[in-house]
Every structure is written in structure tokens, then in C-alpha cells.
């Protein structure tokens, strides 16, 4: 019981610290404001983990239900080779290849139908509709078609990422306004020149939006597809078998890796976005 009380006290103290940190008037000191913005969520995160640890141990929750973070950490440290093999199979092979193929083909199809308003009007509502569908359901079909190895997982990822990319690119290509296009016209710019110099840069925020959505979708697709049959390696495979054997700490270790990979993937896309669309108001407003 003391541990639970300790957890609550810890939480209250940290909450108070955060309140004080937020209340600091940073004035024009950009460095201070930035470090506060970074520090506050980090403190919150640490609080969550400490409370998890203390409460699980304090209430003596069976480890099968919810292992404390320290146990998960120990498990990660002791089974690095297995985790690395799973990571390679699921992330490097299925997710990355599927992501590139899916996003690439969505982008190319969007360019192809760019000149036909008829096809655009037809494809946009369908694309929007398909984006709302539970596409992970195609996983069993893909496993049947492409076999147990990573190709079928990549195929699921392709199907999942294709439509968000298509819809966003088509919308992005329409984002440049008439004045700008007329200007390109007066320069006698060809369709290709208008595309590379005006419309693609204008579409970049939309395209990056799709890339961000897809980065999380891709990981989900690959892992779920592995529930339908895999060779004996892979994050989804490991999760489903270790759950069966009640090795819950291993499952959580795998989840931690997935979370880390997912966040890193998302973060990488965000960094590229900042570098490419540095001119966009939503990014400039963060820098002042």
C-alpha cells in the first residue's frame, strides 16, 4: 500500500512541478521556452512510468496481467537478437518496401489522372470511401495470394497506404490557386514545368500529411497481416505466439520495439517535412 501512496505523492509533486514550469514567463528567451516545452512532456512521461511501476508492485497485480516497466526493460535487454530479427523481418522488409511501393504508386496514379477531371471526380469519392474502410481485412486474402513470407505483408501495406496518398496528392495538386497558375501560363510554362515549379511544392503539405498517416498505417498493416500466417519470425508472429504461452513480458518488449519504431518512423517523416516545406505557415509559426 505504501508503494501506491508513494506513486500518488510522486504524481502530485510532478504535477506541481509541471504547473510551475508552465507558469514561468519566458519572455523573449527562445531557448528557455523550448526547453520548457521539451521538459514538461518528458516529466509527464517519466511520471507515467514511475506510477505504472509503483502501482503494479504496490497492488501486487499478477505479472501475467501487466508486468512492471522494469521487468519489460530487463526482457528487452536479454532478448535483443530475437527482437532484432523480428524487427528486420517486419519493419525493414515488409513495412519499408510496402510503404515505398504504396505511397509511390498512389503518387504516380494521382499524377496520371491529373489531366482528366473526369477520372478525378470519379476517383476522389471512391478514394475517400475506401480510406474509411477496414482495409486490414484484406490481410487474409493477401496472405493467400502472396504466401507466408514478407511479400504478403508488403502487399497489405501497399493496399493500405495507396488510397490516402492518392486522395491527398490529388487534393494537393489542386491547391495552387488561379493567380499563380495564370502567372505560370504567362511565362509560357509547360505542364511539366508548372508541375515541378509550382504545383508539387504547393502540394507538399498534403503529400506529407499522407506520408505521416501512412507511416502509422503501414506498421499496423504489417503486424496485423502476420496474425494470418508467417514464417517463424516477425513482430506480429512473436506477439501472437508469446501471448499464447503467457509470456507477457516478451509481448510487451515487442510492443515497446513497435512503438519505438513507429515513433521513429513518424518522427523521420516530420523532420523531412520540416526541411522540405520550411515555407509553410504552420512550420514557420513554431520557430518564432
Amino acid at each position, binding site marked *: 500500500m505504501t508503494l501506491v501512496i508513494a506513486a500518488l505523492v510522486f504524481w502530485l509533486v510532478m504535477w506541481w512541478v509541471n504547473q510551475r514550469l508552465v507558469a514561468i514567463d519566458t519572455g523573449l528567451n527562445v531557448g528557455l521556452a523550448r526547453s520548457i516545452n521539451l521538459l514538461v512532456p518528458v516529466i*509527464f512521461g517519466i511520471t507515467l512510468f514511475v506510477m505504472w511501476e509503483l502501482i503494479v508492485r504496490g497492488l501486487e497485480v499478477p505479472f501475467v496481467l501487466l508486468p512492471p516497466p522494469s521487468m519489460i526493460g530487463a526482457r528487452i535487454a536479454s532478448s535483443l537478437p530475437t527482437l532484432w530479427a523480428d524487427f528486420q523481418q517486419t519493419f525493414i522488409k515488409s513495412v519499408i518496401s510496402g510503404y515505398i511501393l504504396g505511397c509511390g504508386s498512389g503518387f504516380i496514379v494521382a499524377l496520371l489522372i491529373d489531366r482528366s477531371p473526369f477520372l*478525378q471526380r470519379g476517383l476522389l*469519392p471512391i478514394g475517400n470511401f475506401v480510406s474509411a474502410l477496414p482495409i486490414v481485412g484484406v490481410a*487474409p486474402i493477401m496472405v493467400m495470394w502472396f504466401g507466408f513470407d514478407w511479400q504478403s505483408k508488403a502487399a497489405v501495406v501497399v493496399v493500405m497506404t495507396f488510397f490516402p496518398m492518392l486522395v491527398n496528392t490529388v487534393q494537393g495538386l489542386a491547391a495552387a490557386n488561379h493567380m499563380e497558375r495564370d502567372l505560370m501560363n504567362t511565362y509560357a510554362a509547360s505542364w511539366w514545368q508548372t508541375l515541378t515549379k509550382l504545383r508539387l511544392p504547393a502540394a507538399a503539405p498534403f503529400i506529407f500529411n499522407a506520408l505521416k498517416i501512412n507511416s502509422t498505417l503501414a506498421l*499496423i498493416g504489417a503486424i496485423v497481416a502476420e496474425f494470418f500466417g508467417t514464417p517463424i519470425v516477425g513482430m506480429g508472429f512473436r506477439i501472437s505466439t508469446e501471448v499464447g504461452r503467457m509470456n*507477457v513480458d516478451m509481448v510487451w518488449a515487442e*510492443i515497446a520495439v513497435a512503438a519505438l519504431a513507429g515513433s521513429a518512423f513518424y518522427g523521420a517523416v516530420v523532420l523531412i517535412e520540416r526541411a522540405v516545406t520550411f515555407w509553410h505557415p504552420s512550420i514557420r509559426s513554431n520557430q518564432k
Partner: protein
Amino acid sequence: MTPQTKTIPVLTIIAIIVTIWYLCVVWMNAPFVYDQAERAKVEPPAFSELVSITMAQERPVLPAPHQVAQELWKTTGAMALKGKPFSKRSLIYHTWITLSATLLGFLIGTALGVALAVGIVHNMAMDKSVMPWVITSQTIPILAIAPMIIVVLNAAGISGLLPKALISTYLSFFPVVVGMVKGLRSPDAAQLDLMHTYNASKSQTFWKLRWPSSMPYLFTSLKIAVAISLVGAIVGEMPTGAVAGLGARLLAGSYYGQTIQIWSALFMAAALAAVLVMLVGWAHTYVLKRMGEKPQGAIA
């Protein structure tokens, strides 16, 4: 863009897709037919014959659209006509199981999302500490944790609807939080100042200004949330040993190679998603109309 200008292009695209589908049916199912003919040591069938054979296989690699439609009718309408729409072999029963988990998860997720958003808008510390973690929480592939949550909760004696609903909750609270935070902050400074000059209290400002002006954002998020909680419910049904629900049908179909069953479950799920999104869309228009606002660009 008026609906009329959309209908023809959309129908054209659908026609193209169905045509391609039929072509693929012949192309993908033909190897099996040739294989059979070779094993039986008979001449492979002529092309015209081949086409009809590929479209009537029992376990095709790719079932033809009309086969899927037949299966759908057999497991829904025909069962209902026989007077047992809720027997375990009927797709209506499985759809209902999935739907109930979806709706429960959607409701909890919405409530949680709105509550978090209200907290975030009114408390600086919460804004700075919770918001980044809300975003991080979505980069975690939650669906990967789904089997784990289900099995663990089962071990703890909680089974049935709630575990599945919890996965839906986790997925659906995120769009609601993001949309509501944006919506509750959408009143501009002049409007907030006006409330200030009226000497309105915090709760009055909230109920009379912030809440109404967040409605368009809320409904746009709800559309995403309801679609995603259906995905959560379906995936949540997979690891429970394929007992009931659309996800279970998918898994059972893939174990026994029943492709037609997989496709019909998939189409049912698609139809369900479409209906749910449409219902939220209607509620959107209705609420905005009652508020005296013209529905505009916010409706996707």
C-alpha cells in the same frame, strides 16, 4: 461540385473496377483449372468454357463479384426469410456482434476524447504535458497490442464486449481529442472578448461560446472515429479464437480457405463502415441546421 456531376464519373470508375475484377477472376483462377485438367489427363477446356468455370469455383483464388453477392444474400437475406436472422451461420448475427463492440468503443472513446480536450483547453500544464503523449500514443501500432489486451482481459475474467470495445476506444479517442481541441479554440479573440465584457463565467463561456463553435470540428472527427473504431473491433475479434463477429469470419475463412466467405465478410464490413459514417454525417447536418448554421466546407 453538385452530386449530379459526381454520379457519372463515380459510376464509370466502379464499372471499370468491376470489369478489371472479372478479368482478374479469369486470369487468377485459370491456373487451377489447367492444373485440374492436367491431373485428370484430359484436354484443358476451351476459352469460352474456361471463363464460366473460373467464375463458379468453390474455393477460387479470387471469387467473382456475383459469387460474393450470392454468398452475401445467402447469409443475410435468405436467412432472414427463413426466419432465423440471428442464427450463428448468419452474417447478420456476426455483424451485430461487431457493431455492438464498435458502438460501445466509439461512445467511450468520444466521451474520453471530449473530456481530455476540455482539460487540455482549460489547463496549460495539461496542454503541454498530455498533448505530446496523445500524439505519441497513436504512433504505437495499437492494433498490434489488440490480441494481448483481449487475452489478458480474458485471463482476468473480463470477456465479451468490453475488451474489443476498449481497443475501439483507444483508436477513436485520438481524432476526437485533436478535433475538439481545435474546435474549442476556434472562437476568435473578439468573440472571447465579448464574453468577457458580458462578465461571463468560465462555464458560461464554455457552454455558450466554445461548445457550440466546436460542433463542426467534433462531427468531422466523429466520422474518422467511427470508421476507425470499426477497424478496432474487427481486429479485436481475431485473436479470441474466431468465435463471433466479422473479424472472426475473416480469420475462420482464411484458416479453411473459404475465399468467398472472406470477401463477403469484407464487403459487409465495408457496408457497415459506409452506413456508420453516413449516420454521423446526417447527425452533423441535423445538428448544424438546428443551430441555425449553414452546413459548409466542414462536411467532407
